[in-house]
């Protein structure tokens, strides 16, 4: 294909399997595992990383001679949309020391969900920053825990200083339909973003 070099986009042939991934991020205990479990059969996934990558302080490994890796568990879900079209969900560990893991997960991700709890919105700042900086389309899903004040999405948008194009939705991560709507919102946002990239001049 002589013209292939200038055209990096390609269409997978009909029988070529297509695998896409979405990330589910957010602070500690915000409902990541619950959301992945609401829409897919959830399974644990272990990844072992070297401690230097994990940024663990040296004294932590004193006495554990020879152990140079640490195990990180992630939530992992699979949604089969049709033959040869699968969507994978990865719930990312909340702790900051696992940022290195995000880099691998974010690579080639279609988009992300940032789960936010209005009682501690600041917990999701890091995730919002992360996806903004990498240009990964994301939806902020405000998980309405019982008794939590139902901030209007616009208030959350302001507090997080989000771009107008970023969807902000309310959700209950325990409800399958609600969790589905969150994922749909991410994919729609990603599709709009892709369409925008394709026709930058036609405004």
């Amino acid at each position, binding site marked *: 294909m002589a013209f292939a070099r200038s055209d990096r986009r390609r269409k997978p042939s009909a029988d070529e399997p297509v695998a896409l991934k979405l990330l589910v991020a957010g602070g500690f205990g915000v409902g990541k595992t619950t959301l992945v479990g609401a829409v897919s059969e959830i399974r644990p996934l272990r*990844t072992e990383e070297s401690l230097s990558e994990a940024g663990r302080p040296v004294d932590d490994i004193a006495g554990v001679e020879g152990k140079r890796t640490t195990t990180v568990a992630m939530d992992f879900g699979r949604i089969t949309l049709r033959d040869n079209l699968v969507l994978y969900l990865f719930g990312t560990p909340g702790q900051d020391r696992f940022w290195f893991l995000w880099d691998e997960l974010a690579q080639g991700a279609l988009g992300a969900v940032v789960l936010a709890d209005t009682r501690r919105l600041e917990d999701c700042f890091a995730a919002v920053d992360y996806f903004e900086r990498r240009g990964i389309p994301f939806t902020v899903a405000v998980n309405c825990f019982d008794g939590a004040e139902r901030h209007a999405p616009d208030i959350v948008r302001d507090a997080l200083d989000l771009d107008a194009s970023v969807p902000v939705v309310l959700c209950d991560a325990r409800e399958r339909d609600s969790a589905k709507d969150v994922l749909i919102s991410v994919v729609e946002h990603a599709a709009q973003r892709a369409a925008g990239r394709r026709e930058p001049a036609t405004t």
Partner: protein
Amino acid sequence: MRPYAMTRGRTSSAAEMKIDLIALVITEAEPGDDGGAQDDHSLSPEHLDIVERCQHQAVSVAELASDLDLPVGVVRVLVGDLLEGAHVQLHQPVPPAELVDESILREVINGLRAL
């Protein structure tokens, strides 16, 4: 540390690092055949597990890790070996930015709605 015994202490080479978490592994074979993996005595039982699981359908690296209860890094090494021995094929995911049109994303959205 069984996983390390299994991969003979190797962690990950540059090639293995490029194996995406959602890359799909498919056993390289005619139906009923297993690409000669059974006859390759350098392979461990875990290698053969992978060959078998990927015989009838493509399985992602993440699922292999989850199903075999092995860390992702170990599965990468094993898949790397199998690639080297030409026992499996690897389908790296198409980066979303390279999908030619939105029809796939439309399908994903409709598929999610129908769940």
